[in-house]
C-alpha cells in the first residue's frame, strides 16, 4: 500500500494540502481523498484538465469547510488534541531530553523576559503622563558658536518668561527647578527633595492632584501665602496617610506652609520630589531669579499644540533665543536654547545600557534556541525509525511535520511558562542590582507586555527550531527510511545541520564573552584608577544650614563650632565642610574671568567647578599638594580672598607659568564678585564620577563663600561607619533641629558611582557563562553522537591496524573544524557588535584586540577540552565488539 505511484495527472497542490489539513486523520480521510482523486482523474481524462482542476479545488474547499465547521468525525481540532497528547507522552518518556530543553528555554526566555520588562518600563513605554510624547523639555545652553547648543546651563527666569510670551508652538509652558527643603522639627528633623514650579505645571503635564486642589495663579506671585502640594508616598511616609492632611501646616526651611493637595500615587516625575511649591513667590529682588544672566536651575516643560512637530517647535525656540541674544547682548550673547522630548531627557544614559543588555540577552535567547534546535535535530535523528514506521503505516508527510511542530510548540510553551517564572525571579534580582538612580525604576515590573514577549519569543523560537528538524527528518519517504534506519545510520545532512548549529553557538558565545571581557576590563580600569584622594576611612554626611533664618555670621560661627566639635570626636583625625563631594559631581559650575588675561567674548568664557571648602578638606581626603599651600583656619571672611586651583586649571589657564599669585573672579565680567588670589595648587581628583575627566576646579575658603547645604567630611583612624551616631550627636548638640542626612562612607559613595558598570559587568558575565555552558553541552552531544554512529567504522579501522590515538584524532579534527568555524565567525561578529556597548566602556576600546584574543583563547581551550572529553569514548571501542554489531 505504500508503493505510491503517481497518477497520470496530479490534482492542484494547494487544494491537496488543504484536504490533508482539514480531513479526518487516518483511513477515513484517505478514502475521501482517494474518491476525489479518482473522480478528478476521470474528469481530467474525459474532459478538460482545467475544468477538472477547478472542480477539485471547489470540492476540496467544500470538504475542508464542512469538516472544519461541523466536525462529524475527528477534525483538525481533534488531531491537534491527539498531537498534543502524543507530544506530551513522548516528551515525558524521554526525560533527559525534555529536562535539557526546558532548562535551556527557562534560562533563555527567563533572561529575555526580565531584561525586556526592564527595557520596556524604562525606555519603551511612554511616561505615565497623558500624551507624554507631546511633552518637551526646554532649557538654555551655552552656544557652540554656530547657534547650536553645547553645554546645558539651565534657563534664567526672564528667558523663560519671554519664551512663555513669545512661543506659539505650545499649548502650555511651565517651568520648574529642584529644591531641597529642610523640615525643621525638633522631633524629626528631615530633609526632603522638593520642587519649585510655576502654578500651571501639573496642568501642562496633565496630572491633577488626587486630593485637595491644584495651585492657582494667585499662589504663584511674590508675597503669596505659602502653599504646597505633597507626593502621595510622602503623605504615607511622613503622615501615615492621615485623611485630614489637606489644610495641615508643614515647616519648610523654617517657614510654615499649608498643604493644599496630594499628588496621585506613583507620580514619580522629576526625581520623585516630595514637596512642590510655586516658584513665583520668590520672584523678588535679591535672590537672583530676576537676573537674566543667572541660570538658576530652571527648566521648561511644554505641551506641543496638536499638529506642531518637535522640529517646528525647536526652530521657533532657537529663533526666540537668537533674538534674546540680540536684545540683551550683555547677558544672552553666546546663549541659545534647545528642546528634547521629556521621555528622552528622563531616560538619559540608561537607554544605551539597557539596549546593549537587550542585545546581549537576544544573543542568549538565540543560543538557547540553537541549543534546543540542536537537541531536537539529534532527537529527530534517533527517532527516524519511529517516524519511518508511522509514515509507512500511512501517516502523511504534513501530518508528521505537524506532529513534530506540535512537539516543539508544547516544549516552547512549557518553556515560556517556566521562563516567565524565572524571569520574575531574575527581575527581582535585577531590581536589587540596578543603580538606585536608574530612571523610572519604580515602574519596573513583570507586566502584560513581558508576558506577551515571552509568548512571542517562545512561539518564534518554537517555529524556528521546530521547523528545521521537522523538515530534515521528514524529507524522506517512509519506505526509504525504514530500510536505512534499520542500519542505525543517520543522514549526513542531519549531522551537518548539527555542526553548523554548534558553530553558531560557539560564535554567539564568543560575542557574549567579548562583552563580558570588555566590561570586566572596564571595571578593572575603574577600580585601578587613582581618584586623586584616599576614600578609605572617610565618613560623609550632609546637613542643612540654610533655612534656619541665620545671617552669614551665625552660619560662620556654627561651622567653626561644628568643626571643633567633630575634631574632638574619638578617632577623628580631620574634619571638614565642603559644597561638593568627590565623584558625586559638581554642585556649582560657573564661568569666571582670569586677572592677567584679556576677557574673551561671553561664549568663550572659561567655566570651572567652584567648591567652597573649609580648612582640613584636602587633608581629610588626602589630596596631594602640588604647589603653594592649602586653606588654613586663618582664611576667614575678613582675611584676603584666596583660592586653590586644581592641576588641570593651573595647566590650562597658566601653561608654563607659576599660578601662585594669579587672580580669578567667579561670574560674568560685569558682576561685582570679589577677586580671589591663587595660593595653592591641588592634585586633580575625580569630581564628576570616576569615569569622567576632571574639569577645571577652583576651591574657595568656606568662610568666604558660604554654602547652605554643605557636606560634612570626617576622616577616622579606625572604622569610619562607627562615627555615624557620634556625627549626628555632634550636630544635634549644637542645633537639635538640624537635619543630618545621606550619611555614608566615601567608599560606599564610590561604589555607587560605578554601579552602572558593575551591573552591566555582572549581567554580561553571567550571560557569557551560561552561553559557554550551553555551547559546551551542545558540542559534547554532537561529538558523542558522532562517536556512537561511527562505532562500526572505528571497529574496522582498529581491526585494520589504526592506533587509538589515530581514532581519537579523527574525532578531534571533526570537532576542531566546527569550533574553528564558530570562533572565526564569532570574532568577526564580536568586532562588529562590540561598538554597541561603547558607552559602557572605560579605559578600553570596543575592538580591543587583547580582550578578543583572550576570550577567543579561553573559549578555544574550553571547547577543545569538551571535544577531547567527549571523543575519548572512541578509544574505549573494542574492535571485536564493534564489528559484531
Amino acid at each position: 500500500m505504500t508503493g505510491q505511484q503517481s497518477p497520470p495527472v496530479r490534482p492542484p497542490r494547494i487544494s491537496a494540502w488543504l484536504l490533508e489539513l482539514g480531513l479526518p486523520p487516518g483511513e477515513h480521510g484517505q478514502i475521501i481523498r482517494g474518491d476525489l482523486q479518482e473522480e478528478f482523474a476521470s474528469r481530467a481524462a474525459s474532459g478538460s484538465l482545467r475544468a477538472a482542476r477547478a472542480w477539485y479545488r471547489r470540492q476540496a474547499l467544500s470538504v475542508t469547510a464542512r469538516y472544519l465547521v461541523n466536525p462529524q468525525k475527528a477534525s483538525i481540532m481533534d488531531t491537534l488534541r491527539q498531537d498534543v497528547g502524543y507530544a506530551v507522552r513522548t516528551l515525558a518518556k524521554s526525560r533527559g531530553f525534555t529536562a535539557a530543553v526546558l532548562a535551556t528555554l527557562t534560562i533563555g526566555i527567563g533572561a529575555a523576559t526580565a531584561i525586556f520588562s526592564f527595557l520596556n518600563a524604562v525606555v519603551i513605554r511612554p511616561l505615565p503622563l497623558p500624551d507624554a510624547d507631546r511633552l518637551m523639555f526646554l532649557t538654555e545652553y551655552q552656544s557652540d558658536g554656530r547657534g547650536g547648543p553645547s553645554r546645558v546651563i539651565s534657563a534664567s527666569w526672564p528667558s523663560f518668561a519671554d519664551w512663555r510670551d513669545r512661543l506659539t508652538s505650545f499649548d502650555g509652558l511651565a517651568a520648574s527647578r529642584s529644591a531641597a527643603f529642610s523640615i525643621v522639627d525638633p522631633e524629626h528633623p528631615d530633609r526632603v527633595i522638593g520642587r519649585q514650579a510655576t502654578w500651571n505645571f501639573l496642568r501642562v503635564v496633565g496630572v491633577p492632584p488626587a486630593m485637595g486642589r491644584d495651585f492657582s495663579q494667585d499662589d504663584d506671585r511674590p508675597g503669596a501665602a505659602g502653599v504646597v502640594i505633597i507626593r502621595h508616598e510622602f503623605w504615607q511616609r511622613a503622615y501615615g496617610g492621615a485623611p485630614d492632611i489637606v489644610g495641615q501646616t508643614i515647616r519648610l526651611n523654617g517657614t510654615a506652609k499649608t498643604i493644599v493637595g496630594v499628588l496621585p500615587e506613583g507620580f514619580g516625575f522629576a526625581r520623585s520630589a516630595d514637596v512642590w511649591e510655586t516658584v513665583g513667590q520668590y520672584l523678588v529682588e535679591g535672590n537672583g531669579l530676576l537676573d537674566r544672566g543667572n541660570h538658576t536651575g530652571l527648566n521648561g516643560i511644554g505641551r506641543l499644540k496638536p499638529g506642531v512637530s518637535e522640529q517646528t517647535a525647536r526652530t521657533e525656540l532657537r529663533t526666540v533665543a537668537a533674538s534674546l541674544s540680540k536684545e540683551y547682548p550683555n547677558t544672552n550673547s553666546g546663549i541659545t536654547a534647545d528642546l528634547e522630548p521629556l521621555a528622552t531627557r528622563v531616560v538619559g544614559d540608561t537607554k544605551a545600557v539597557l539596549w546593549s543588555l537587550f542585545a546581549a540577552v537576544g544573543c542568549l535567547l538565540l543560543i538557547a534556541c540553537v541549543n534546543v534546535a540542536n537537541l531536537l535535530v539529534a532527537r529527530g535523528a534517533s527517532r527516524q525509525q519511529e517516524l519511518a514506521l508511522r509514515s509507512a503505516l500511512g501517516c502523511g508527510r504534513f501530518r508528521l511535520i505537524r506532529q513534530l511542530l506540535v512537539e516543539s510548540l508544547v516544549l516552547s510553551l512549557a518553556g515560556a511558562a517556566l521562563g516567565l517564572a524565572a524571569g520574575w525571579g531574575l527581575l527581582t534580582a535585577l531590581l536589587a542590582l540596578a543603580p538606585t538612580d536608574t530612571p523610572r525604576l519604580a515602574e519596573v515590573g513583570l507586566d502584560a507586555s513581558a508576558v506577551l514577549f515571552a509568548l512571542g519569543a517562545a512561539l518564534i523560537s518554537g517555529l524556528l527550531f521546530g521547523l528545521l528538524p521537522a523538515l530534515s527528518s521528514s524529507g524522506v519517504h517512509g519506505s526509504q527510511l525504514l530500510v536505512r534506519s534499520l542500519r542505525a545510520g543517520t543522514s549526513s545532512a542531519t549531522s551537518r545541520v548539527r555542526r553548523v548549529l554548534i558553530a553558531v553557538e560557539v560564535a554567539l558565545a564568543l560575542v557574549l564573552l567579548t562583552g563580558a571581557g570588555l566590561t570586566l576590563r572596564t571595571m578593572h580600569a575603574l577600580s585601578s584608577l587613582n581618584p586623586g584622594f584616599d576614600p578609605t576611612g572617610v565618613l560623609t554626611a550632609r546637613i542643612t544650614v540654610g533655612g534656619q533664618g541665620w545671617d552669614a555670621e551665625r552660619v560662620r560661627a556654627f561651622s567653626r563650632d561644628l568643626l571643633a566639635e567633630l575634631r574632638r570626636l574619638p578617632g577623628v583625625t580631620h574634619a571638614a565642610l565642603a559644597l561638593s563631594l568627590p565623584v558625586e559631581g559638581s554642585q556649582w559650575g560657573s564661568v569666571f574671568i582670569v586677572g592677567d588675561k584679556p576677557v574673551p567674548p561671553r561664549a568663550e568664557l572659561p567655566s570651572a567647578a567652584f567648591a567652597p571648602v573649609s580648612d582640613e578638606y584636602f587633608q581629610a581626603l588626602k589630596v596631594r599638594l602640588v604647589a603653594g599651600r592649602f586653606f588654613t583656619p586663618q582664611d576667614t571672611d575678613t582675611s584676603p580672598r584666596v583660592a586653590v586651583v586644581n592641576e588641570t586649571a593651573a595647566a590650562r589657564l597658566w601653561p608654563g607659568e607659576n599660578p601662585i599669585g594669579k587672580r580669578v573672579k567667579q561670574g560674568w565680567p560685569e558682576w561685582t564678585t570679589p577677586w580671589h588670589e591663587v595660593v595653592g595648587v591641588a592634585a586633580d581628583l575625580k569630581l564628576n564620577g570616576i569615569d569622567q575627566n576632571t574639569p577645571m576646579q577652583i576651591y574657595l575658603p568656606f568662610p568666604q563663600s558660604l554654602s547652605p547645604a554643605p557636606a560634612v567630611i570626617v576622616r577616622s583612624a579606625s572604622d569610619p561607619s562607627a562615627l555615624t551616631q557620634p556625627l549626628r550627636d555632634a550636630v544635634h548638640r549644637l542645633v537639635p533641629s538640624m537635619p543630618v542626612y545621606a550619611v555614608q562612607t566615601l567608599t560606599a559613595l564610590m561604589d555607587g558611582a560605578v554601579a552602572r558598570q558593575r551591573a552591566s559587568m555582572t549581567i554580561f558575565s553571567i550571560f557569557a557563562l551560561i552561553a559557554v555552558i550551553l555551547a559546551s553541552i551542545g558540542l559534547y552531544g554532537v561529538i558523542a553522537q558522532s562517536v556512537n554512529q561511527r562505532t562500526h567504522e572505528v571497529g574496522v579501522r582498529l581491526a585494520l591496524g589504526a592506533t587509538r590515538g589515530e581514532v581519537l584524532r579523527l574525532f578531534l579534527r571533526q570537532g576542531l573544524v566546527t569550533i574553528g568555524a564558530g570562533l572565526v565567525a564569532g570574532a568577526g561578529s564580536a568586532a562588529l557588535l562590540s561598538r554597541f556597548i561603547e558607552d559602557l566602556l572605560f579605559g578600553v576600546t570596543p575592538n580591543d584586540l587583547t580582550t578578543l584574543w583572550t576570550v577567543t583563547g579561553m573559549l578555544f581551550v574550553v571547547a577543545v577540552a569538551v571535544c577531547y572529553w567527549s571523543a575519548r569514548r572512541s578509544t574505549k571501542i573494542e574492535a571485536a565488539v564493534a564489528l559484531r554489531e
Partner: protein
Amino acid sequence: MTAPAPVYLGEFEQLVLLAILRLGADASGVCIAAKLEVEAGRRVARGALYTTLDRLEDKGLLRWKIVPGGENRGRVPRRIYSVTPRGLSAVRAAHGVLRRMSRGLEGVLDPPRS
C-alpha cells in the same frame, strides 16, 4: 425485538440512501455522487455528501466495507456503502409519508400530459 422508533430523514439523506439502494454492490462515494448528479439532476458538494454519509453511519442507517482501490485512485482503498435494516425502515417510513401525503393530488403533482 421491538422495532426501533422511526428516524426522521432529511431530503438529502433520503436521496443518498435511495442512491445506495439503487447502486447495490457499486455504492462507493464516487458512484453515489454520480448517481445523485445524474438522477436527481443536482450538483452535489462533496463536503455535504461525505458529512451526510458520516451522519447516516452515526445514526446506524448505513454501514460500509473496505475494498482495495485501483490504479486510478493511487491504490487507496474505497468504501462500499450499504443500507442497514434500520436504514431501510427509515427510507420506507419516509417514503410512506410521502405517498400518503400525495394521495389524491395526482392531478396537481403529475405534469399535465399533452
